[in-house]
């Protein structure tokens, strides 16, 4: 399992009626780094070329791991 980034995840708890058939589950959703990271600058920290090719981005700031144990109810 790769490194998780809980800071990219948000959670909410919709109303749960006592008559709802299934146990309540918190709803998680992701705010990917494109929402919060500043735009590309040359001063930004970079992955090595090989790691960047694997990850799909040159910049750690824009990397978003998935799946996440946050959503699975693992880490908080």
């Amino acid at each position, binding site marked *: 399992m790769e490194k998780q980034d809980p800071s990219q995840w948000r959670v909410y708890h919709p109303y749960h009626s006592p008559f709802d058939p299934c146990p309540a589950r918190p709803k998680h959703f*992701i705010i*990917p*780094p*494109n929402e919060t*990271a500043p*735009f*590309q600058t040359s001063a930004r920290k970079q992955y090595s070329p090989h790691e960047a*090719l*694997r*990850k*799909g*981005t040159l910049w750690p700031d*824009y*990397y*978003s791991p*998935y*799946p996440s144990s946050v959503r699975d109810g693992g880490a908080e």
Partner: protein
Amino acid sequence: MWIYEKKLQYPVRVSKCDPHLAKMLIEQYGGADGELSAALRYLNQRYTIPDKVIGLLTDIGTEEFAHLEMIATMVYKLTKDATPEQMKAAGLVDHYVNHDNALFYHNAAGTPWTAAYIQAKGDPIADLYEDIAAEEKARATYQWIIDNTDDPDIVDSLKFLREREIVHSLRFREAVEILKEYNATQKVF
């Protein structure tokens, strides 16, 4: 024009014989938020966008075709040796009676691709916000497919594709910022 390199943008390996996974992946092939929609949308919009962001639409539109090719490879590998019985068990009998094991541009529910999925409004901000939304929807689709497979090799390729959608969205947001600045940076002689 384009120059074709006879290799995939990112390796595609399939570790399990699981034609059912092909049925899910086809959403990103011929679905509303899939790679075909993305490529055709961007490459078409670029003719009527301010010149500073034309290159971005060309770059991303071209990359979407590379993604389309990755999805096609996954679907092909997952179904090429499937028997009619296996296709049926995977929920692909409707596909089989029309296409045998050939690929086709439709979504996971079998609805054929349509140009009605995409838009070119001619208004640069409207078009770029559509593109940003398209990238977020494609990212979400990849998440839901990843959630539904335990093939580690497919998951590896899908994670790469998902990350590319995040970077594309970021770059379209940058394009919006470039448009906002347009008059300020215009040289008047």
